[in-house]
């Protein structure tokens, strides 16, 4: 695994959901992408898989995986890449499994459509193996989704995602609908299968706590732009961007009481962005330049990138 470089713009009609986002991902790395609602983080996940639906579209940019530009592939070649090389773990909205198919059939059709057509015995064997690797009992293979709990469904989704040993796993808010206890179990499962496969993980979400505990490096999105990318420890000790700093300050903790405070102002709408830096109306340090000129993502300290004029 060499480099994954994403760099693209996606106008949804007149709306730019993600603008000039670029980053690289190393083999075996866990990268987090965090953002509040409307920050374009889910668009990013779908864009890497080339699954942006009209009226959205990818206008420019490149996604490199092991020396291949995914955006230049044919539709059929891209289909082969999905799951086999880049797999998605969908949002934990409990609705990602086909309600009328048994779990084993939902794994089997993925194997079959990727040219693996082994015997029924082999399929059963592989399904059992996969379920076991995510901590599910073999009986689950013959069950329907409605017979599983939320955590079990999400584990089944992980089993599907790793069925072809992908290089990159994109997890889009995988635990957003789960209770904390189950969330921890699911994330531990994800961490373990990732280690076994040696795959990289892109975790997309809004929960800073989950990011702090799970990822190696964290990208922060605001209004469709990546405004900071740093190793996760640095972000929490010395954030570079004022938004990151205020976001962290707004999080309640279990350590100390009464220390958190919100960010005043509103999250801007993507169709109505302020000129210059999108954060300037809420930024306490904003200067004239912030109102006029949009900052670019620059390396401010080793491995620490931020898009802010003040740095």
């Amino acid at each position, binding site marked *: 695994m060499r480099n994954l470089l994403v760099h693209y713009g996606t106008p949804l009609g007149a709306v730019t959901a993600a603008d000039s986002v670029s980053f690289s991902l190393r083999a075996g790395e866990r990268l987090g992408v965090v953002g509040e609602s409307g920050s374009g983080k889910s668009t990013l996940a779908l864009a890497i898989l080339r*699954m942006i639906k009209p009226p959205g579209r990818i206008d420019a940019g490149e996604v490199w995986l092991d020396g291949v530009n995914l955006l230049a592939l044919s539709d059929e070649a891209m*289909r082969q890449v999905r*799951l086999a090389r880049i797999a998605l773990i969908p*949002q934990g909205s409990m*609705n*990602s499994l086909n309600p009328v198919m048994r779990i084993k059939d939902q794994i089997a*059709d993925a194997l079959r459509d990727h040219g693996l057509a082994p015997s029924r015995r082999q399929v059963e064997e592989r399904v059992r193996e996969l379920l076991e690797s995510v901590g599910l009992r073999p009986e689950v293979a013959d069950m*329907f989704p*409605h017979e599983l709990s939320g955590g079990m469904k999400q584990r089944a989704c992980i089993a599907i995602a790793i069925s072809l040993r992908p290089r990159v796993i994109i997890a889009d808010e995988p635990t957003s609908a789960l209770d904390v206890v189950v969330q921890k179990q699911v994330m531990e499962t994800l961490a373990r299968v990732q280690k076994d496969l040696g795959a990289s993980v892109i975790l997309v979400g809004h929960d800073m706590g989950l990011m702090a505990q799970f990822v190696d490096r964290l990208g922060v999105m605001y209004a469709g732009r990546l405004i900071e990318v740093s190793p996760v420890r640095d972000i929490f000790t010395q954030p570079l961007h004022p938004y990151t700093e205020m976001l962290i300050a707004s999080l309640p903790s279990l350590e100390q009481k009464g220390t958190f405070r919100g960010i005043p102002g509103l999250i801007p709408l993507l169709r109505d962005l302020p000129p210059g830096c999108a954060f300037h109306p809420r930024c306490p340090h904003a200067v004239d330049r912030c109102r006029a000129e949009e900052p670019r993502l620059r390396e401010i300290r080793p491995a620490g990138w931020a898009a802010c004029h003040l740095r």
Partner: protein
Amino acid sequence: MRADYLARRVGVFVLIVWLAATLNFFLPRLSGQDPVRATLLQQASLGGHVQTGLEAMVKEYERRFGLDRPLWKQYVTYLRDVSRFDFNYSISSYPRTVNSIIAEAIPWTVGLLGITTVLSFTIGTLLGALLAWPGAPRWMRLLMPPLWALHAIPFFLLGLILMYLLAFRMQLLPMFGGYTAGAFPGLTLTFVGDVIAHSILPALSIVLVATGGWALGMRGMMVTTQGEDYVTFAEAKGLRRLTIFLRYCVRNAILPQTTALALALGNILSGAVLVEVIFGYPGVGTILFHAIRENDHFLIQGIVFTVIVALGVATLILDVLYPLLDPRISYRRT
């Protein structure tokens, strides 16, 4: 759970049949006098070739449902008869029994309705599914407006138009009846061919109208299904477009279609009755038409009751089979 479901469903069926029978019994008596009796007496007083039979019928009717007997006793007698499918004699064609007349007509109606329902459901559902598929050819989209328009027209009106154009003007197909008058009914090739030729027009007028409805419903469901998370995930699994289309979209979108089928049967049947009348097709609808014209109350009651029971059975079968399509059903409460 499944036994519960079955028991509840059969219970509903019995309830429907009982209600239909009760309605059949009480409605004619609501007007104060007994219209059945009135008709019988009127027919008897008119005289004619069947007078002796009619007098016997009046006597028989008096014996069973005599007004001197309390209403509930009449009702019990009636329920007993109905449960044995005994609907008495036909008033207009005495001494034939209502049963024998209905039995003769039923194969025609079941054949026509069964085939047209299956055809229109299959074609419509398929068409609706294809219409929602991004890979569908463009000409298909042009089918939509005519289908919509046809869907809005009552079956029998389309029947009239088709009959005028194809049978009367172009003389392509026979106009009336189930087979050519004078033909010898039997399992010969010519007779079967004759029957098919006669059924094309009535069948066409039902299929053309009904297909649009199924197509519309299926297209709507497909659009909904395509927005579901499991379809997005299926795409992320790198499945072939055909796999996603068939096993994820169509498979789920067809579920509400099937539930709708049970409800639609009643409407199709109501429409088919009129189609039969227009084409003089020897099915239940035409018999009903004649029965109404001749005030043959026993025959009317017998037909209505039989049809409601038959429809009840059809929907019962559909409902019992439905859990095979949708694994969630045995858990869901209705």
